[in-house]
């Protein structure tokens, strides 16, 4: 199996818009992604933490996806930023990664499952 370069796009934002973000990235052609819940932290909009009664409302969610092209990564970052991060707390960034089983990350693959 060969290794190839790829990009990891990471979106950390409010749980309140988890559904919106996932719909957005799917509309951009993303077929698979991973979701982490119960993410907390702090930023210029304040501290993010939750308690049971709210059901995760004040917490963050981390959504990451692997894309093969730089253009795709930049597209996702730009759309997430322009459509949501002006109004909602969050960050989005990419990093360089190496993957095997490249076919898993091309269009038409079954994709990753959510955590």
């Amino acid at each position, binding site marked *: 199996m060969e290794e190839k370069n790829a990009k990891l796009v990471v979106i950390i934002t*409010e749980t*309140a*818009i988890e559904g*919106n973000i996932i719909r957005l990235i799917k509309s951009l052609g993303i077929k698979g992604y991973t979701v982490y819940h*119960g993410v907390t932290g702090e930023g210029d909009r*304040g501290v993010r*933490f*939750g*308690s*049971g*009664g*709210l*059901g*995760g*409302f*004040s917490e963050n969610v981390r959504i990451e996806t692997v894309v093969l092209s730089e253009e795709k990564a930049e597209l996702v970052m730009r759309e997430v930023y322009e*459509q949501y991060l002006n*109004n*909602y707390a969050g960050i989005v960034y990419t990093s360089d990664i190496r993957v095997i089983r490249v076919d898993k990350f091309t269009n038409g693959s079954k994709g990753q499952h959510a955590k």
Partner: protein
Amino acid sequence: MLSLELVWQNIISPPILFFALGVLAALLGSDLKIPDAAGATIAVFVLTSIGLRAGVAVSKVGISEVILPALLAVLTGILLAVMVYSIFTGVTKLDTANAASLAGHYGAVSSVTLALSLVYLENVGAGFEQFVPALYPFMDIAALITAVVLARAGMAVKNGKSVPLARVIYEAMISKSSFLLIGGFLIGLVNGVVGTEAIMPLFDLMFPGVLTILMLDIGLLAGSRLPYLLSVDKRVFAVGLVLPPIHGLVAVILATVIGLSPGGATIFAALAAGASYISAPSVMRTAIPKANPSLSLAMALGLAFPFNVTVGIPLYYQAAKLISQLL
């Protein structure tokens, strides 16, 4: 007019004191924490219990009894949202988004305030029409939608990307509090007393105790938000404090006029005076992104809720008794 004895008895009742305990724990930095799953399970239990009971109650009196109160609930929800929005934009000069979000929070219903009003009425031995809790979704959804409409009307829509109103209505209806309550109500309605005979004992027996633990969780939550409350604009704070009793008293009058008993009017007042902090925050967050979620949460949780559950509910009950004698 106001019997301090009744208020005192309410304040030292276990649910209220556990709420205070939770607030204290948060403020003192205790590591006490109710796990998220447990908190969510407790909330599901409480909502299911309320919905089922209301459904069974309506199965006994028939749907026709409910239509007029349901209509009143919708109108009250709209009225309250408009009122809150107008006061915040007019008196405190708050921006449209935050005023509308607060209108949604204050107009919508707090299921825990509702639950506590039921417990209170049973403690003082007051009768009430059993279906009144079922009015929850009517007032809740009406208020949330009104708030969004007010926000849209007050703001120029930028970049055309605002959430369609149909989606807001949809989200308000499937939000877990309304959904569970409506669902439980329908199931209780269809089954009636006989069909629910096997399961009701569990709900009846455990309700007060489970509610008490829920209050502890909410206290922890409220306590963590308290520091933020101190930084809120003083006029906004003051308005937020007087809104619940105003809503409660208006609701008591309206409910008595359409013929509800003092107990029923008290529950209606609890629906009106309560500020939602579980369902409203998530609906408002996606529908009105420009509003500050910390503000509305702090106001609902730190001002409206504590007032209602300590002084408010006994106050509304006594007002209801007084007004029913006058009318």
